[in-house]
């Protein structure tokens, strides 16, 4: 089974306070800790587990800049056979549709039985996988939390409401968006990353892929972000500003008043 996993390097929301820049047109990107998009890491692990049983190879690809190569190397250290960086000034500022178009062009140049993405990335759109499948004319399933290979078909489950699982069979080739928790991604140490540090990573641009630069990038984006702002959902909590001991005393008083103490 030849598997392509589409990955992305994102600011790690677990490690960063996301703040706006001074003009509000972007987040403050200085000093952000970047990492592999969490969903994508599960997708790579799943691909590795499938190939371990069914044979084949795993390719990881990302649309980005040279800085984004580090996540390809990280996933190669996990065991992905090769990484490819899809990079071109014409790709900058692509919306979800633009990213899907670039990835579709790359998929058509290869011969993949299965294409995996994460369910979503930092923008929370949960859209690139479904768009990619529609562009390729492949079947698609989102929120996939188990995969079993069955000849030229897969038996999959999707995570639906209340923790229930929707079981389906899906023909190959197909595109699946992978939900977190589908597996336990293996640990990657510095040693593993050093071992893949010198493997060349091919870079492909618009002309290599046969992508019309006018159909991707910021100019072609159908949905444009104009600015960021800080949400004011809800009334906001009363923030306790005292010392730890003072805060604890206050919390205990509140718990007593609200029926939270037996």
């Amino acid at each position, binding site marked *: 089974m030849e598997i392509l996993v589409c990955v992305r390097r994102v600011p790690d929301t677990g490690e960063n306070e996301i703040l706006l820049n001074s003009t509000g047109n972007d987040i403050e990107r200085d000093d952000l800790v970047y990492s592999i998009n969490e969903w994508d890491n599960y997708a790579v692990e799943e691909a590795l587990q499938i190939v371990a049983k069914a044979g084949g190879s795993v390719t990881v690809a990302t649309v980005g800049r040279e800085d984004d190569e580090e996540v390809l190397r990280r996933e190669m250290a996990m065991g992905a056979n090769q990484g490819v960086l899809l990079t071109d000034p014409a790709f900058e500022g692509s919306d979800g549709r633009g990213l899907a178009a670039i990835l579709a062009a790359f998929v058509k140049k290869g011969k993949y039985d299965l294409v995996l993405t994460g369910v979503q990335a930092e923008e*929370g759109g949960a859209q690139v996988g479904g768009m990619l499948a529609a562009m390729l004319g492949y079947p698609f399933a989102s929120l996939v939390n188990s995969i079993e290979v069955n000849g030229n078909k897969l038996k999959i489950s999707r995570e639906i409401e209340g923790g229930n699982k929707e079981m389906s069979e899906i023909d190959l080739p197909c595109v699946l968006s992978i939900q977190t928790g589908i597996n336990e991604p293996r640990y990657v140490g510095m040693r593993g990353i050093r071992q893949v540090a010198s493997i060349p990573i091919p870079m492909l641009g618009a002309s290599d892929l046969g992508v019309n630069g006018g159909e991707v990038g910021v100019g072609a984006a159908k949905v444009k*972000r104009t600015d960021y702002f800080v949400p004011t959902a809800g009334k906001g909590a009363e923030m306790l500003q005292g010392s730890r001991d003072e805060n604890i005393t206050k919390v205990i008083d509140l718990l007593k008043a609200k029926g939270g103490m037996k």
Partner: protein
Amino acid sequence: MGGIFAYILHKGGVVDDTATELIAAAKAFDNAASPTAVAVGTGAGLDAVCTALCSSYAEVWKIANDALAYPNAELIRKALLEVLPQDAILLLPHEHFGVDLAPGLSIKMNSPYVSDATGIEGVAGTTLRATRQEFGGQVSAHVQCDISNGAVISVRAGAFKSVEGLAANGTIVDKSSAVGALSAGRRYLETIAAETGDVDITKQSVLVSVGRGIQGADNVDIAQELADALGGAVSCSRPVVDAKWLDKSRQVGTSGQTVKPKVYIACGISGSFQHMAGIKGNPFIVAINKNPKAPIFQLADVGIVDDVLEFLPALIQKVRES
């Protein structure tokens, strides 16, 4: 700009609550808008859904097809492409079915897709302005798109307040004949119900709920000590289940359990929309998180910026003394 259509979720012949939220979303485009409901399915269940929708929608398009007994996004996409006008503006809820259908449909309709909209600020000319959240809800963004050739917009459940008290006395228009035989590369087999765990978190009045900030399976014991001292139970957010620190039956949220405690103590939980949607009944929420920007502080009653691994042991000691 084409007509506004609302894709209706339903199950067992019962219309989902989001149906009337989509009317509110349509009215945010244009207060005079009268969206058309689109109900897809088969049999008596679909008929009951269409009849019920007539109380809130002036027009209900019914698409009955034997292949649509279970909502399969690929089949429904094909049916909608036969029935909807090319410049349709389609609203649908952003949940597990919506994320399956909407992205691919937007490609096939060649329309912009606004995903998981939390607000619609209005339409100026043919430009729609909407709001959505990024970075796990830590920041929001304004987005805009040209809707003159249609649009697909998935709407966050609960973001629009249902329009109540409607008496639309609507009419049902049967569009079934526009759709022929349907087949798909993905075929539904069965639904497997979630496993039940040792503790039923839906029945607890006090929940000590742990998130990624608890950092490890061993530290869950700290939360359990607090729960024991308060007479409650331990629940959690999704990352804790993903990391296998707790069983899936302990998860609160759209893909886990819906809980209705009196007191909810959120320890190291960022407060994603999907998590908070599982907390009902307006409990008193105490949030402890080391990130002052965590969305949980927008939604909690009381917030403390602190490291849960230091705060909780100190709290447990004081609770035992008091």
